[in-house]
């Protein structure tokens, strides 16, 4: 497909690239703001990616360069992986100086689907193992997040970490009384897996594949779950929690920009893994929130994402400074939320209330 056909809305404006004199044929969410030619667009998105980390000096001042990329097969994950691979090849002074490890994650418990995904992961793994790239990688099911100390060795014949925990994981999800609670548990397991895997491998920094659009939807769903004040840190570019630094380098990049860049650079063919992530369940807050944001964008409120992220960046927890942290998610928890099992933040306590097997919940997550 010719580049001019990738973004008909931008091409139709007939304007020049904002950075050079070439025809502007590509844009972000709002073509009226800026249009770019192909090379300038690619440079713009990559610059946003790198400056998100550079501005916050995440890798400066002697900080460790070891980084774990959580790869879930999404377009955002493909872009991040593409950037890591590119950084290994770059020879100029702007090389992204990172020592990456990739954690390819599985959410599905359907063996057939898991098989297809693993096959795709094997192809990706082969590319990562090529001479000149040499990026180490592991594959894990998010059920492995149940392991307090993740066992990195895998029994022969097994392709991924966490297969033994899938039964408990499924039982825990079935015990949740609403699809929202199940969806939220899945999200928490993903975080726990990343944090515990990073701890097991001695890595301090984790890249999460969340775009600006994903994060704006998270803002709405987090507020709807009662996370309120903690939302600011949960969607920020850099956040310290569960003993690691969660980084979101695509904080300022939208889904459209990701899709276009992946197409232009070939990341979609090389790394995107269709059907890898579980779709959002129909009757969940997460889907309602996602649809709400998408609807506002379609209605012409194109500044929704940037405004939400900017608003959230300005807020902090107004309650008394927390001395302790939630046993499950690591967010600050105030004393009054203490329960008999463990100290939990308000949203995690609500999750526990929705679980019909509280003993299992406590054993799996609170002990």
């Amino acid at each position: 497909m010719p580049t001019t056909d990738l973004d008909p809305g931008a091409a139709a404006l007939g304007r020049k690239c904002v950075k050079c004199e070439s025809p502007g044929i590509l844009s972000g969410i709002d073509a009226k703001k800026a249009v770019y030619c192909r090379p300038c667009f690619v440079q713009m998105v990559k610059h946003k990616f790198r400056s998100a980390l550079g501005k916050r000096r995440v890798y400066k001042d002697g900080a460790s360069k070891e980084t774990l990329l959580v790869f879930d097969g999404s377009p955002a994950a493909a872009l991040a992986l593409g950037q890591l691979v590119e950084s290994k090849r770059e020879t100029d002074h702007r090389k992204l100086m990172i020592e990456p490890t990739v954690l390819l994650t599985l959410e599905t418990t359907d063996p057939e689907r898991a098989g297809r995904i693993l096959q795709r992961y094997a192809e990706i793994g082969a590319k990562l193992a090529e001479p000149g790239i040499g990026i180490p990688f592991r594959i894990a099911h998010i059920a492995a997040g149940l392991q307090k100390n993740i066992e990195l060795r895998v029994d022969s014949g097994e392709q991924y970490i966490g297969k033994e925990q899938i039964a408990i994981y499924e039982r825990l999800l079935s015990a949740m009384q609403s699809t929202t609670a199940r969806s939220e548990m899945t999200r928490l397991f993903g975080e726990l897996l990343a944090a515990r895997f990073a701890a097991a491998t001695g890595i301090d920094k984790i890249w999460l594949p969340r775009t600006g659009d994903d994060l704006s939807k998270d803002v709405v769903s987090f507020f709807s779950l009662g996370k309120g004040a903690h939302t600011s840190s949960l969607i920020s570019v850099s956040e310290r929690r569960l003993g690691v630094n969660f980084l979101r380098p695509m904080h300022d990049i939208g889904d459209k920009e990701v899709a276009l860049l992946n197409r232009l650079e070939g990341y979609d063919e090389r790394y995107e893994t269709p059907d890898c992530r579980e779709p959002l369940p129909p009757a969940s807050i997460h889907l309602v929130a996602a649809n709400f944001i998408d609807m506002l964008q379609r209605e012409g409120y194109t500044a929704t994402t940037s405004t939400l992220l900017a608003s959230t960046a300005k807020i902090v927890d107004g309650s008394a400074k927390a001395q302790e942290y939630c046993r499950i998610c690591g967010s600050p928890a105030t004393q009054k939320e203490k329960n008999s099992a463990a100290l939990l933040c308000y949203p995690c306590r609500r999750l526990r209330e929705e679980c019909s097997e509280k003993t299992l919940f406590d054993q799996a997550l609170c002990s």
Partner: protein
Amino acid sequence: MPIACSTEACTSSATIKRARDGDPVCTACFTRRFEEDVHETISSTSLFKRGERVAIGASGGKDSTVLAYAMKVLNERHDYGLELILLSIDEGIKGYRDDSLKSVERNKIEYQLPLTILSYKDLYGWSMDEIVAKIGKKNNCTFCGVFRRQALDRGSYKLGCTKLVTGHNADDIAETVLMNLLRGDVARLERCTNICTGEDGGSLPRAKPLKYSYEKDIVMYARVNKLEYFYTECIYAPNAYRNFARDYIKKLERVRPRAILDIIISGESVAIRKEVAMPVLGNCSRCNYISSQKLCKACLLIEGLNTDNLQLGTKKKATTTSAQKTGCKSEGEPCECRGDQDGGTVENNNSGNDDAIDRCQDSLNDLNCSTSTRKKKPISFEATDSDATAQDNKACGCDNDGGAAKIDF
């Protein structure tokens, strides 16, 4: 097989499911628990002091009707010692407000509470019908919300009230939290979940006793107690931005009813980072109402209506090229705007010609250039009623930026 009422020691069959917690209850327990919830909200926050004169913002709709009834019942049952007065605002919307005011009149008789009605026409010289005829069906809620807020405060001061209560319910507050987040209005986000605003002495305190009551429960309470209310939506509301948030809240409630309270809890936990610049409140130089700008929003909007500058108060910048060319001189010097040079005549903007509006860049806040095309003299926010002399020149706690079908807070 009938379901038993979930209230302890009640042996009746359940006929209603409470929206707030999903409990099945009989009719009597529904009413009793609803009233107990409101009483709990009032008592746990020490919302009122004995002997206070409290104005109840009454529109004739379900929320204010239930609020008035519940306040009367609880005032008597728990001996709050309050003097309650109904205060209604006539925005001048034919087919909507004229009908709902009849409902308020019935409330006055049934609840035996005194009623005062103020109208936009008397206060501002414009009814909402006239405003909409002039500006079209856009930004209507901005005008109405700003005017109503000030009108309620003026009415309350005039009646010698020390507090105003409004019927904002949990759904409204959740919508407002979401709207403030979406619009990036962190100043409002911080205070919009407060049970009582304006208590810092800068304005008339206004409270929301129905803060944790679900809209569905309010409707059911009105039905069960046979309260008459007016239930038609404002004819100018369909295009309001708030409808997006309202639609989201309704979908959310279907999926997870508890989420409405969780949004409120989220809003309550929020504070603003110290380094974020917040508006500094002062007083309007024209009417003395509280404002973060030189002129309050109401005065700006009225000036825009009177001078045919319909973007005044609704857009952030003057949009004229000549406005960018001319610059307002510093204070005390003549302004280069045409309004000043030709003796004060401001040309009509309706032609759309940029040169027709020669306002300086600061025209949103400084109307020294505008002149004789005003229909009414400037509104003075000073109590004219001798009973309210204690409230003279009292600054109010509003920064006058409307935008909602309901009053902004």
